């Protein structure tokens, strides 16, 4: 049985189901309770679970991230919502130095089962401070898992897995995806998508396109257009950034011999850089063309509509990169 849900509803259902299942799961963040969420992801949770488990915080990211981590040390399972991941920079010390490293520094004694979640990446016309992708920032650090779903089914299944995971998980959503509907969400409360597994969302033979979050939609659109032009693209939804499903990517490249990495973040030391290096290390001899990356321009995101459009990756950029990789430009 499948049902239709928006990504927002899928995330909401995941939290409702996991909070129902486990008393130690709670949600904290700015406007999550009485306001029902700045982006309405936590709609109705306060009514269902009460103010002990759905907690409005002051605007104090560094402090409440630390409170979440400390409570996880004592066995609770917090979901800490950042109104946007841009604000997580206020809290990044607690995420990296406390949540990610304590298990190691304690010789395995003190785990930190916590989820940091919220919208990531560029919204629309909100300028440089509110528009960036944190995938490569957090994926850099051992001790964290980093997840970034695209569609409703994986948003729900991955968030449920993240809440059950005994490790700290950075869960990167996308504001522009919250309202999008998908009709293929399994209708059961045990729909779990494993962390660390990518999905081949379109099979192809000529080129591999990797993408995550909203960029998966762009990649799928590009693949459709390319098919009309006689190029068969395989599209991989990474779903998890760390641990990256290297095997799925490598296997695909061994088949297609070409790779185009798509992300909304910046080029330097980005996810594309990492994928390129992995392929060089593990599938170098299979490459028939240089790896390509499609990503944001290496600038803070501008406000003006025309400049913003220039700064962000689009379907056409993917099509052009694929054609270059296939020597059909």
């Amino acid at each position, binding site marked *: 049985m499948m049902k239709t849900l928006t990504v927002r509803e899928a995330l909401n259902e995941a939290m409702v189901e996991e909070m129902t299942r486990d008393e130690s799961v*709670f949600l904290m963040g700015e406007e999550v309770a009485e306001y029902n969420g700045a982006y309405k992801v936590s709609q109705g949770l306060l009514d269902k679970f009460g103010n*002990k488990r759905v907690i409005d*915080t*002051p605007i*104090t990211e*560094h*402090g*409440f*991230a*630390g*409170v*979440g*981590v*400390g*409570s*996880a*040390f*004592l*066995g*609770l399972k917090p979901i800490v919502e950042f109104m946007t991941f841009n604000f997580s920079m206020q809290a990044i*010390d*607690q995420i990296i*130095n*406390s949540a990610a490293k*304590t*298990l*190691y*520094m*304690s*010789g*395995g*004694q*003190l*785990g930190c*089962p916590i989820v940091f979640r919220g919208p990531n990446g560029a919204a629309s016309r909100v300028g440089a401070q509110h528009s960036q992708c944190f995938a490569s920032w957090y994926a850099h650090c*051992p*001790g964290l*898992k980093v997840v970034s779903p695209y569609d409703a089914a994986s948003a729900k299944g991955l968030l449920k897995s993240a809440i*059950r*995971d*005994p*490790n700290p998980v950075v869960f990167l959503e996308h504001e522009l995806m919250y309202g999008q509907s998908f009709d293929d969400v399994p209708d059961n409360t045990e729909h779990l998508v494993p962390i660390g597994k990518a999905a081949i969302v379109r099979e192809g033979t000529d080129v591999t396109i990797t993408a995550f979050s909203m960029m998966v939609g762009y990649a799928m659109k590009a693949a459709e257009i390319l098919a009309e032009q006689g190029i068969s693209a395989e599209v991989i939804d990474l779903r998890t950034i760390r641990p990256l499903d290297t095997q799925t990517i490598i296997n695909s490249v061994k088949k297609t011999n070409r790779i185009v990495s798509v992300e909304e973040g910046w080029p330097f030391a980005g996810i594309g850089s990492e994928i390129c290096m992995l392929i060089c290390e593990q599938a170098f001899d299979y490459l028939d063309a240089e790896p390509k990356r499609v990503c944001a321009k290496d600038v803070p995101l501008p406000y003006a509509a025309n400049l913003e459009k220039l700064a962000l990756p689009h379907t056409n950029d993917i099509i052009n990169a694929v054609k270059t990789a296939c020597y059909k430009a």
Partner: protein
Amino acid sequence: MVQKKNTEVSNQLLIEAYEKMLLIRRFEERCGQLYGMGLIGGFCHLYIGQEAVVMGLQLSQQPQDTVITSYRDHAHMIACNMDPRGIMAELTGRASGYSKGKGGSMHMFSKEKKFFGGHGIVGAQVSLGTGLAFAHQYKKDNGVCVAYMGDGAANQGQVYESLNMASLWNLPIVYVVEDNEYAMGTSTKRHAADTDFTKRGDAYGLATKKVNGMDFVEIYEAGLWALEHARTKGPVLLHVKTYRYRGHSMSDPANYRSKDEVNEIKINNDPIQRVKTLIEEKKLMSAEDFKALDAKIKDIMLDTVEFAKTSPEPEEHELYTDILVEA
């Protein structure tokens, strides 16, 4: 005044405090030696001079209470009844250390003894401690978190974010500002707009008290009050005036203060000597008893050091363990 207080502390408690404070001091002295010999690496921050603070508070706690502090943490672990062997072996980077040799001086933990670190980032432990208190309240386990910070940490922004939330949510927590007069090399007068740290708690509606941290009895009584208040009414901030005899860390020659300043405290206000004097006045221990205790602690330390020196280093495969919990 002192006489009145004495009657409220049991004789047994006084002796226990004296023994533990002495153990802490001897432990820290040995750390200094081992550091000098190159057996302890990195940063190493000694607690000598501040022993009454942690013992006064620890003895006023209940078994379900949790403790968290920053990097000057060896004493807090001994106070929590963690094994000196495991602490010292961690300091020498051995597999039998509390963190299997992967944490070091500033990063040690014992879930079993309810000691939650040992944190190297100044002030981070204050938010984390507030989270422990949040969990006590959530689980209704009647526990209180005692979260220590130095006078230097007391200037970090997240401390005030934490005080605000603790007060807003009425969390069971005792914040302890261990004011040893120096944030590394910067005196309180040079780093705090107002050196009365109770005012910072007052501003957020916490119950506050200023305590003489060189006086075990005073801090023990303040601890009893603070723990009871936190358990039944709401958060507390204690401003504890204390003094560290050594530099900020082993690499600090402490040129920012005079030898006379340090000697004045050592001679006239030493927290361990003060407890010893009380015990002598009350005739709880004889000269022989003191001698026997010294010998006992010396033996513990010899054994501790031997253990820490001879324990094996972690095996190489440990490099890759404990990064993630296997789901």
